[in-house]
């Protein structure tokens, strides 16, 4: 049966068909839907892990024990999981282990643009990369075969346009892959120096064997056309190249590390001019140059951002292409904003009012860095808010600290905020940390986490008690406040930043998009009472509109959270009648 599938769904299908038993992940755009889709298959044990490192460790355990496993993350997640990655390269696997990593060229939703291929090289792990949903499914199966044949983990590289494009996939059956026998083998699985030294030698000979394999695997294929031009490319860049170059010759790489040297030489000898088209780093290009082959690549094309067929046409052929543009109009940008009814809005309103320095983190609340709130000073990586606030205090002292807070979400806190908090307590810091507990992982589209009380399959489970957890690591001052109760929230923040001991404020209110969250319905502004002071506009709600002569609430957007009515000093906002 043919189906239109997201790249991520196709990866999930491939894992299912390959008989995978365990799937783990921490959500991160653009990789999230892989694990969400696998969770729909009853045959696969599936979990949201607290972070990528744990996710990979669980998957490694499964593979060593004999069950095929898949672990998914976005590119920055691989940084978190880098530690176990480098060692599982040494231990090898037993049953297959495939690690999905989704890069984000163009940074549609990420804090940097790193190229994960570098990790394959650094950790000495083979890497494959598909170019559409059909290949996503097929290559996952191939990756499991490589993993077991060469006793190695395999990294599977995706990118935003592959993960989030739907194309046609032919659905197959699930293969019955029995558990592999588990044998105790400390020489292989206990990586202490004496044993690891031997394993490093094994890794090197494995890489040599893989490099040979790369020359013959059908994952690397040549598509002959005119030999005036040859293009070496992979993944989504292959699709752009096909459109821009048309009927020329292509060496389309599916196994992108180690590279197929013989094949590359053969191909390059048969074409007149050779181009390398790859997004981000000159990973292929440098390798091919080292083989003594002349190529055109990054001298014409950028190392930043996403490619497109037009970009290639422009840079390679000097063509200017485009449609008709209306001259002379300014089209305002439309940056993302926090949803109407978002629980973070009340908190930002207060932080703004108190003019605090805010050490931020990764989540929906990162949007608070944009106008109108602009209430965030730093945002580095998952969980960095607490450590950074602690560093600020140590560098600048008490006075600065009493005007500083760290903010992060519940999921982020469990991911890697907790270790920062332990550091604050242990090293006698006094930071004020606000945990934004919206009862879900919001930004990536509503995934459960250890604080929500539900698993990925929606089954009830034990819920982390944030108050007790903070107490347990040594925080004595923990306050739970509703951020929409503005007065009390403000009072609490003022008290806690003044306190000469570390403290945690749990800002607790569920995400406005959760199904069970019900508001009282659209509000309206009573024109006669309104003094046009625009106080209500400071909360940055997209539903409140300045019409020039009056202020209005857009009923198609307003959910009726009522926050605006709490900031209006003239009682001019009320629930709209029928």
């Amino acid at each position, binding site marked *: 049966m043919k189906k*239109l599938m997201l790249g991520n769904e196709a990866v999930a299908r491939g894992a299912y068909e390959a008989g995978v038993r365990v799937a783990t992940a921490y959500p991160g755009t653009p990789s999230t839907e892989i694990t969400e889709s696998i969770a729909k298959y009853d045959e696969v044990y599936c979990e949201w892990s607290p972070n990528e490192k744990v996710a990979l460790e669980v998957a490694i355990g499964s593979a060593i024990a004999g069950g095929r496993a898949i672990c998914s993350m976005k590119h920055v997640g691989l940084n978190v999981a880098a530690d176990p990655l480098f060692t599982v390269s040494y231990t090898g696997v037993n049953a297959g282990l495939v690690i999905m990593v989704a890069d984000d060229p163009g940074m549609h939703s990420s804090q940097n643009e790193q190229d994960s291929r570098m990790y394959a090289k650094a950790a000495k792990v083979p890497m494959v990369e598909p170019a559409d949903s059909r290949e996503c499914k097929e290559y996952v199966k191939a990756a499991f075969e490589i993993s077991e044949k060469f006793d190695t983990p395999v990294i599977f590289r995706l990118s935003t346009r592959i993960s989030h494009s739907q194309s046609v996939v032919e659905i197959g059956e699930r293969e019955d892959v029995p558990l592999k026998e588990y044998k105790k083998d400390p020489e292989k699985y206990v990586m202490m120096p004496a044993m690891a030294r031997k394993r490093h030698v094994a890794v090197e000979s494995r890489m040599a064997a893989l490099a040979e394999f790369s020359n013959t695997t059908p994952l690397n294929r040549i598509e002959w056309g005119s030999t005036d031009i040859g293009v070496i490319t992979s993944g989504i860049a292959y699709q752009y190249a096909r459109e821009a170059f048309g009927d020329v010759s292509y060496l389309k790489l599916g196994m992108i590390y180690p590279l197929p040297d013989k094949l590359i030489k053969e191909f390059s000898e048969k074409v007149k001019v050779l181009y390398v088209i790859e997004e981000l780093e000159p990973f292929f290009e440098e390798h091919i140059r080292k083989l003594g082959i002349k190529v055109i690549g990054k001298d014409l094309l950028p190392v930043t951002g996403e490619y497109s067929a037009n970009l290639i046409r422009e840079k390679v052929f000097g063509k200017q*292409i485009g*449609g008709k543009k209306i001259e002379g109009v300014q089209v305002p940008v439309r940056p993302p904003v926090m949803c109407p009814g978002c629980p973070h809005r009340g908190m930002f309103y207060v932080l703004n009012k108190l003019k605090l320095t805010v050490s931020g983190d990764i989540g929906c609340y990162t949007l608070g860095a944009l106008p109108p709130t602009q209430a965030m000073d730093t945002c580095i990586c998952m969980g960095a808010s607490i450590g950074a606030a602690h560093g600020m205090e140590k560098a600048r002292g008490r006075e600065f600290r009493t005007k500083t807070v760290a903010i992060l979400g519940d999921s982020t806190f469990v991911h890697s905020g907790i270790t920062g908090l332990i550091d604050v307590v242990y090293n006698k810091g006094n930071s004020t940390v606000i945990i934004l507990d919206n009862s879900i992982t919001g930004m990536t589209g509503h995934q459960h986490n250890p604080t929500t009380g539900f698993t990925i399959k929606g089954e009830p489970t034990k819920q982390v008690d944030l108050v007790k957890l903070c107490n347990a690591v040594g925080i004595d001052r923990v306050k739970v406040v509703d951020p929409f109760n503005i007065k009390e929230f403000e009072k609490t923040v003022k008290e806690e930043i003044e306190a000469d001991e570390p403290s945690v404020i749990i800002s607790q209110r569920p995400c406005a998009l959760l199904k069970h969250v019900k508001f009282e319905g659209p509000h309206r502004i009573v024109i006669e009472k309104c003094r046009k002071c625009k106080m209500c506009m400071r909360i940055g709600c*997209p539903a409140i509109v300045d019409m020039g002569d009056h202020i209005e609430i857009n009923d198609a957007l307003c959910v009726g959270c009522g926050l605006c009515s709490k900031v209006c000093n003239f009682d001019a906002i009320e629930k709209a009648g029928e």
Partner: protein
Amino acid sequence: MKKCNIMIVGVGGQGTLLASRIIGNVALKQNYDVKVSEVHGMSQRGGSVVTYVKIGDKVYSPIIEKGEADIIMAFEMLEALRWAEYLKEDGKLLVNEQKINPMPVIIGKEKYPENIMQMLKENYKNVISLDALKIARECKNIKAVNTVLIGLLAKVLEIDKEVWIESIKEVVPSKAVDVNLKAFEEGYSRG
């Protein structure tokens, strides 16, 4: 329908993703190669969103580039203006006359351009517009804006109506199917 590039543009939360799935599904039923490309993440939250649907015998890049769209379906006027240069010379621009202020306009830093519809009609040959929000409201579900627009598109593309209806039934959650089919009919009748 032969080879066809359709762009769907709008504001995060307006249901553009669902619309793209319905269209993609229709193309698949007609046995074409299809690619649908969407961007998730931050842009879901009230930001500018764009989805590309490319239909043909063989589709490579999932992205539609400037001057390549046969049809642009705009869920909001300002977004129509933003993306109009992606239209082919004889391409069709379908516009929902809804206005959603972006944050820079809300906070008074920028102005929402006036006379957008007039500008579009002066500069592009084929502009069809309707007030899908009003129609959806009349159907008693303001969330059905997307299926009203799908109705309009169905008429413009001249593909058998039944195929669309079937596709809507498959893609839309079952309890919302009735309202959405009604909204679809309304949109279709205005094409």
